Every structure is written in C-alpha cells, then in structure tokens.
C-alpha cells in the first residue's frame, strides 16, 4: 500500500482530454441504453475512474456518477478534510463525502433518475457487495457497463500514449540502475525503486527472480537473497494513472548475447500482435492492458484460459519467459502498434 507522486498535471492531462473521454463514454452509454454510469474506485481498482476524471485514491473508496448530461458527481468515503486534495487531483464538479458510499450514491441516483431508468456499473460483479446492494435498491434496472466502458476507452488518445511513454521511460531508467555485477538482491530491488520514485513515479512495484536457474517466478522480496548467475527484475511503474511493466534479465558473462536474442524474439512476437502465435511458443507469457478498473488486466497469457480480443494498436504490457541455449530469460516491455514503447535493452 504504497504511493509515490500523485498530482494532476493540466499540461499533460488538460481538461479537454477528460471532456473528450466523457463524451466518448456518453456515446457508448447511449448505444448501450444506459442512462447513468457508475464507476467504483479504490486503491487497486482505480483505472476506470482515473481515465474519466484523473482521480486516484490513496485511501478508502469512491464512486463516480456520470449522468447522460451535466456534471459528474464523486461520492467519497475519504474524510471531508481530504477535499482540497481531491479537488486538486479530480475533474469533477460535485464532491460528496460519506463513510458509506453505497447508500449515498443510491440517494444521488434516486433523486436524479426517472422511473424505468437504467444504471450501468463498470465491473458490476467486482464492486463491493455493500455498493452493489445499495445500487440494486435504487429500483432502476441495474446492468453491467464494462463493455460500454471498454468501447469508450478502446480508441485511446494521445495523452494516454504520452503518459505510457513516460512511464516506460521511468521503468527503463529504473531497471538500468541495477548494478549488473552486484550480488545482493535487496540492493537491486532498492536501486530500481529509488530510481522510479525519484523520477516521479506514482507507484513502483519491483518483483524479482533472484536465481532464474532455480525458479523463474517473480516475487516480492522480503529478506535477504543472493543474485544467481542469471536473474531478473520486473519494474511495474505507474505515472499519472498509466501503468506499464518492464523486465530486465541479467545473465553474467553473457558472451553469447543470450539476453539480446531473447529481446529480439520478444520484439518479433510483439510485431505480430494481436496475433499470439509466437508468444504461445513460450512456456510462460502474459499480455496485459488497461481495460476497465484494474490498471493492468490480463487479456491473454499462458495462465489465462480464454484470450480476449484487443485492438492491434492497443497499449499492452507483454511479458514472456524465453529459453535461449538452455538459459531462461524473462523479458517484458510495454508496446503499442507492434513495437516496443521503450525497448528493454540495457
């Protein structure tokens, strides 16, 4: 439960960006016959709301109400003392404060909606029971609005691409901070975290596979560990609501250019996206993107039973385990339009 720099930069995300996104959302709502949209946000599911109004909760939970027309309303469980902070980071005119957001959101909807109205909730299945039950009590038709939201967001925009490129740059610089000759896993994790946060990352999660010959799984390090002959670190970096992942593998005495070959294989696989044939040859792989509330949602992967379609130009973070000359290499990077946003070359 950590956060780095959170601020709303109106240079990078001018109000017009949100106006355009909200208009796209309303178009998708109209197509789905949804009168009012509700998007829920908390610490780990902030992405839908931040896309609509920039707000990212560092504490507690909120619900954003997007009517067919007119101002957005944010119902927040944060204390009213947090109002100046929320106002400074949120494109929403109406802020309401209450410890229990479900009943208050329901009250707002009851007052605003005519009988027979339809309320669409982004990821209805996943919202807290207390919120879902309160919305059910409004008496309107309650439907899942995830598809409508995904449709609205799918086309992307220049602002989101720019933020992702910055986040990818942060991730690359952070991973470049590793002392490739070091042996202390904790020091390697600390170097990545320091670099990412000092650059202004909103969040930085560092995972490590300290000895790829023993175990390729990436974990959150707790306590000392030695770096093996081949090891990997993954930087998950957020910048103003946009999340990316990048992985760097270090192979000591890599005279055969093993990591370079793996990077080239990943580049070739990414060039074919959304086709997944080349990725499927890896024993472990994952493609994630920001669809709805999760900042990085799995859309395809070796552990994902059913791959979901995603557009060729979508911003995705791709990870894979690639074996070169008997050595396991973990490699990953954000990509868009068939190419790395920032190449994971070090």
């Amino acid at each position, binding site marked *: 439960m*950590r956060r780095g720099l*959170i601020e709303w930069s109106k240079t990078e995300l001018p109000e017009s960006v949100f106006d355009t996104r909200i208009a796209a959302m309303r178009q998708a709502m109209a197509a789905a016959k949804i009168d009012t949209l509700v998007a829920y946000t908390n610490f780990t599911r902030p992405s839908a709301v931040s896309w609509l109004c920039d707000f990212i909760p560092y504490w507690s939970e909120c619900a954003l109400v997007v009517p067919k027309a007119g101002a957005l309303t944010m119902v927040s469980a944060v204390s009213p003392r947090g109002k100046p902070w929320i106002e400074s980071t949120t494109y929403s005119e109406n802020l309401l404060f209450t410890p229990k957001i479900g009943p208050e959101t329901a009250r707002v909807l009851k007052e605003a909606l005519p009988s027979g109205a339809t309320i669409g909730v982004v990821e209805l299945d996943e919202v*807290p*029971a207390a919120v*879902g039950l309160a919305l059910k009590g409004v008496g309107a038709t309650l439907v899942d609005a995830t598809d409508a939201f995904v449709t609205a967001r799918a086309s992307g925009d220049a602002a989101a691409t720019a933020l992702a490129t910055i986040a990818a740059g942060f991730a690359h610089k952070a991973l470049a901070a590793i002392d490739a000759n070091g042996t202390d896993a*904790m020091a390697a994790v600390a170097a990545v975290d320091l670099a990412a946060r000092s650059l202004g990352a909103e969040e930085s999660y560092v995972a490590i596979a300290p000895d790829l010959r023993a175990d390729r799984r990436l974990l959150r390090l*707790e306590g000392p560990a030695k770096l093996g002959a081949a090891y990997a670190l993954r930087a998950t970096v957020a910048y103003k609501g946009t999340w990316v992942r990048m992985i760097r593998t270090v192979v000591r005495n890599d005279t055969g250019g093993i990591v370079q070959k793996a990077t080239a294989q990943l580049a070739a696989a990414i060039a074919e996206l959304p086709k997944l044939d080349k990725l499927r040859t890896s024993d472990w792989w994952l493609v994630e993107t920001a669809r709805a509330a999760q900042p*990085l949602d799995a859309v395809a992967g070796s552990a994902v039973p059913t791959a979901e379609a995603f557009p060729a130009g979508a911003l995705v973070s791709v990870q894979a385990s690639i074996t070169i000359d008997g050595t396991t290499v973990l490699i990953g990077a954000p990509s868009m339009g068939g190419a790395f946003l920032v190449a994971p070359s070090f």
Partner: protein
Amino acid sequence: MKTTTLAAERRAKLATVMTAAGIDVLVAYGNGWQGDYLMYVSDFPILEGHGLAVLTPDGACRLYLDSASEIDRATSETAGIDVRFSQQIGRDVAADLKARGTVRVAAAPLAFVPFALVENAHVTLEDGTLLVDDVLMHKTPAEFDRVRKAAQTADKAYVIFREAAREGRPQYEVVAEVESWLRAQGVADNFMLIGSGGTDIRSVTPPSNRKLATGDLVITELTPSIEGYFAQICRTLVVGKATDKQKRAFAIYIEALEAGIAAVRPGVLASDVARAENDVFRKHGLGEYVTSAYTRVRGHGLGLFADSKPHILENVDIELKPGMTFVVHPNTYNPEVGYIMLGDSLGVTETGSEVFTQTPRVLFDGAA
C-alpha cells in the same frame, strides 16, 4: 522469508473459532489496500487486483486471485494452499461453495466481497467480520513480536526520513529515499503519508512535488511491515530551526501522547485512551481540534493492516486486552502553527503496555 509455522498457527486459530461458531466455510476478502482478512487466512500479502480465500475448519485453503501477475507470487510465497486464477472471483467462489454443498458460510468483511458473490451464492452469506476481527486484534506472541520488529524498523526508517527531509527537496524525493532504504533492508511494504508547510496544511497525503522550505513543519506517518505486520511511527520535524511557538505547540502533543499511553492497560476501553489524549487538548483550550473537522482517529490498531481495529476514539468501547497492538497518535491541527503528528506503536501486556517505537518524542529541527 515468512515463517510457515505462523501461517499454520493462524489458520488453526481460525479453525477453532469457526468450529465453535458452527461455520462450515469462511470466505475472506482482500486487496492491496486492506489485505488483513485474506492474509490471515491464506498467508498471501496481495498487491494487485483482489482475492478471495476459502477456508474450511480442517485448515484447507483455496485462494482465488484476479490478477494474473499475482499467481506466481502466490504459488511461491505461500505454502500448502490451492491457488487459482479467476477473472470472475465472485462467481467462481459462489460456484465453489455450491459444489461443496456448504450450509453455513461466513464472509469477512462481508461488505467488501464482490457483489457477484452475494448475488450468486446458493446460501445467504453470514457476516464473519467480527469473528475474524477478534482473532486479528488479539495477537499471539509470535504476531506481537512481528509488530515489535516492525516498530524497530520504523524507528530506523525515521532516521532516514530526517536525513532526507532537506530544504528544497520535493516531498516525493524524500519518500523515495525512505522507500528505497526499506527495500534495501528487505522490507516489502510500507504505508506512508506526508505533509509540509504551516497553517495551510490540514492533513497528510501521498507525496506531492511541493518543496520543503525553511520553517516548514514536515509531518509523516511511516508504517513499515515485517512479514505482513505493520507498525507506525508519527513524528514532526522543522526545516531549519523550530520557533518558540512551534515548540510550545508541540509540548501539548507530547503531553497528550504520554497521557494516552499511560491510560493503556488491560480492562480499559479504547475510548478511555482517546479521552485521555483529548482531555489534554481540552485543558489547553484546543478541544475544537480533536473533533472530526480536524482529525480522524486518536490512534488505531496495528497488525496485518496499517489501519486496523480498534480505532482509538471516544465512542469506541472495545476493551483492551493483552496481545493487542496499536498506535497512539494525538495528531491534529494546531491553529497557531499547523498540523502536528506524534505517535508511538505499542502492545498491551498483562500489566500495562510495552511501547515499541523508541524515537525521542521531540520536535526535530536543524538544531537537534
């Protein structure tokens, strides 16, 4: 690495409670903000997405996670549980419960489980929140020790904070140094808020790009975890030299913290501790500043969540018992100088309390 014996001990404790309550299955929910219920059951410190753990009284545990990236972590960082990836954890757990043919199912915290679970469960879910809260609050000696160790780390981390909090540095760089130092010690998680300025600051938030300036009060609550157990330290420092006005104001917070800690012993209520703290402010004519308009709680529980029960408030009548761990912090706004933070982590013992954090209770400044 974590000790699996502690996880087994926790699951056994819960199993006993479930059996006594006649519960067939306990479903625990968690996410990266509040993962204590889930962690207690599954031993998994969830970071991304959300998860549900399904526990039976025989100790068998199945963990459903909706973040694919968490699956590897869960399989490598836990032992003896069945980990499953699910993009619809509410529906999948509802199907799991039905397949088991369970009669009595409790969920904790019920209000936060996915809506799809309550909508699709074949039985009405009972609220198991209080049942789990009770075991979360009353720590075993091993858990008590983890909080103690986390507090020792908090003391050391505050030294790093003090060194990092220099004039001209933006808040986020200060936080970056502390977080990085914690990672270098192998500390996986930390909850930290910060504020800097004068009477314009009414609360702490995540770090901004505001630069520290001479005369600023710099406030923080720093909450590292050891094996998932959090402990907190709250302190205030001044960039440059503290003024007499700042020192006078701070003295009231020392008095309040000491009064709160002195009130802690088995048998008293959480409200008694809050009242002891608040009475000091009232005595100094600052009673308005202990209301919800200016402050949230006068302390809170510590354990597998950084803001757990009991909340130390004048209307919370939870009895303190040996094994409970919490922070006492009379943090609030002072109208003359701004928001001041001062708090220490402690545990309730058989005879009183053991204060875990040892950082001096002083207003640190450039002259200190």
